[in-house]
């Protein structure tokens, strides 16, 4: 495909390199859409009354939405979504999504480790909302 950028080369990379950043804007409609396609209909992700009754500040984003949205940056950088062979995170904080309005999650990707022998790099994702990490140890292993 002529539209695809050349894939990154391990030899050109160093631990600590920032390889990309983006902002993810999430509103209630986005959560309903994710609920529908993922099959995760937990009402804490779309029903304000239910969310507050169970002690949350309000409707919160699916952790899996945030995890999925963050790795899109890595797919684009790698030039091949199938190159993401391992991806993990811990969910450290909820992302409250207001209505009306939206929440903006910031994603920054840094090279965390390089395994030249295996032909893989570990991309560490810093995923924050209002300056605080919402994902911890968000790491994607990419085969290059």
């Amino acid at each position, binding site marked *: 495909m002529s539209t695809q950028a050349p894939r990154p080369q391990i030899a050109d990379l160093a631990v600590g390199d920032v390889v990309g950043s983006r902002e993810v804007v999430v509103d209630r409609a986005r959560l309903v859409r994710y609920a529908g396609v993922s099959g995760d209909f937990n009402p804490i992700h779309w029903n304000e009354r239910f969310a507050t009754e169970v002690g949350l500040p309000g409707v919160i984003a699916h952790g899996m939405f945030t995890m999925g949205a963050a790795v899109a940056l890595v797919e684009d950088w790698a030039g091949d*979504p199938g190159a993401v062979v391992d991806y993990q995170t811990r969910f450290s904080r909820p992302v409250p999504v207001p209505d009306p309005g939206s929440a903006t999650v910031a994603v920054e990707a840094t090279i965390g480790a390089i395994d030249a022998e295996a032909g893989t790099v570990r991309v560490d994702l810093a995923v924050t909302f209002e300056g605080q990490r919402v994902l911890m140890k968000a790491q*994607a292993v990419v085969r290059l």
Partner: protein
Amino acid sequence: MPINADYSGREYPATAPYSVGREKLREFASAVGSTHPVHHDIVAARGSGYPDLVAAPTFAVVVAQRAESQLIEDEAAGIDFTRVVHADERFTHHRPIVAGDELVTVLHVDSIVERRGLSMVTTRCEIAALAADGSTEPVSTVVSTLAVRGDDA
């Protein structure tokens, strides 16, 4: 009701096949903002060497959560979903999921651990592609931990 620790170590029979469809892969990728053409454009996917559209890296959660429902919705397991928080998730892809895959999943309950008023329930889904001859090929391993608050937490 407390979590039933007897479920730790349990292995479930393989699920009925999940049929991976092109439109589902497109919709999932669009929902998480994955715009790479191999999720959406069959020509691009084949041009990149794939037999069909490629799933986004976290798509396997759709398949895994169906399998996990065998545990979550089992009242005898004692997991109150209104008290559940997702603690962690990990995908290990042995090969990318592609449209046309028929995926069967074996759910394992790897551990149930009590920690400071929380029950940490870790499950592992071994997802495999079913071939026409009945053989299976490992596709993805999905490990997920749920934190369940106790009654007084």
